[in-house]
């Protein structure tokens, strides 16, 4: 027998000793425990101590009066048994005060409270695990340089002598708004809700506009100067 088996047999015998002492252990468990005891002096000593404990009791008979108690009980045998409904209600103390009901050890409302908490936690967990795709795009924060944010923007340059008032009129008439600029090269970034190509065409029609190109969308035809080798 391996050391582990021997330890398990000892643990089993230790737990079973009380029922070996009272004679109710039976079957293969009895055989295993008896076999273990043959080789285990500690268990034999424990069994001897348990026999002594068994012999030491039971304590003196209680001073209860059998005849008196029986005489009181016999008339009750004829009384009808209590109705089932009050019997099931009996364990619940009637008319308890609200303080008692709110006591932390009152299992009834604790169960309800714990159930509600579980529900709230489940809802919060579901919200946490939900894919982020459902968020409305319009409310999302975007920086100017972000890809989607840049959609619909154009770059435009004006003649250097164009007055600021004229510049604003041209932009507004084209259906765009100024999103940034001027850059170091004098270009302005425009934003538009409409199609950038259409807006760019409108802008190009203005004599004060020297360049108008959409920044996103289908690639615009390269400016003639850039297409040259």
């Amino acid at each position, binding site marked *: 027998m391996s050391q582990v088996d021997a330890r398990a047999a000892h643990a089993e015998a*230790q*737990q*079973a000793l*009380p*029922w070996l*002492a*009272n*004679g*109710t*252990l*039976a079957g293969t468990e009895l055989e295993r425990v008896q076999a273990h005891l043959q080789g285990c002096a500690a268990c034999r000593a*424990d069994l*001897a*101590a*348990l026999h*002594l*404990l*068994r*012999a*030491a*009791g*039971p*304590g003196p*008979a*209680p*001073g*209860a*009066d*059998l005849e*008196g*108690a*029986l005489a*009181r*009980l*016999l008339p*009750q*045998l004829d009384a009808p*048994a209590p109705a089932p409904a009050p019997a099931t209600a009996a*364990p619940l103390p009637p008319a308890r005060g609200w303080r008692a009901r709110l006591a932390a050890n009152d299992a009834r409302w604790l169960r309800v409270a714990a159930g509600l908490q579980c529900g709230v936690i489940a809802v919060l967990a579901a919200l946490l695990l939900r894919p982020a795709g459902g968020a409305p795009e319009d409310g999302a924060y975007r920086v100017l340089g972000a890809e989607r944010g840049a959609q619909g923007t154009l770059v435009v340059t004006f003649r250097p002598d164009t007055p600021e008032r004229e510049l604003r009129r041209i932009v507004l008439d084209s259906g765009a708004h100024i999103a940034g600029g001027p850059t170091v090269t004098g270009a302005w970034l425009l934003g538009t809700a409409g199609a950038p190509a259409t807006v760019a065409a409108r802008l190009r029609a203005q004599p004060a506009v020297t360049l108008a190109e959409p920044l996103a969308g289908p690639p615009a035809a390269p400016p003639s100067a850039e297409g040259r080798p």
Partner: protein
Amino acid sequence: MACVDRRLDDTLILARTAEGEACLVGRIAAGDRLAFEALYRAYFPRLGRFLQRMTRSSALIEEIVNDTLLAVWRKAATFDGSSKVSTWIFAIAYRRACKALQAVDEPVEAGGDEREGLDADRPDWQFERQRLAHAVDAALAALPLAQRTAFQLTFYHDMSYPEIAEIMECPVNTIKTRLFHARKRLAVLLDGQLEGRP
């Protein structure tokens, strides 16, 4: 009267075996008062000893025993024989005792202290035995109720652990563990008094 006594004596004999007890319960279900009285007389002392470890009040012990056996009278027809009669009755008594003790909130005193000094210097074996019984009594009173109940059902009512598990409505491993801890605690409380004795 003598005839009734003889019939009662005959019926009491039935209460000495598990099969006889089951037969008595069958007769009780049919309303046989003699059978009930025989079962009552057989169980009054057994339940009394069992309950004595839970409460020192004789009046409360009598009340719980009467409650238990009144339930036996009323529910005898529901006893299906799937367990022993003793297991069934002790389970009722245990539940009633727990409820009654909860209701009165009675502390269980360590018994035997007042008896300690009575035979203080008698060195004979009888006295030693008695002294050990008192020491065990006091040590048992110091155990938690669940451990004490499992202990006394094992040692003083000779029940198997499946029966005790049924009475206390818990798994058998819980009973084994309770008894294991009860023994460890008793060994400490009795402090070597169980060693070196025949």
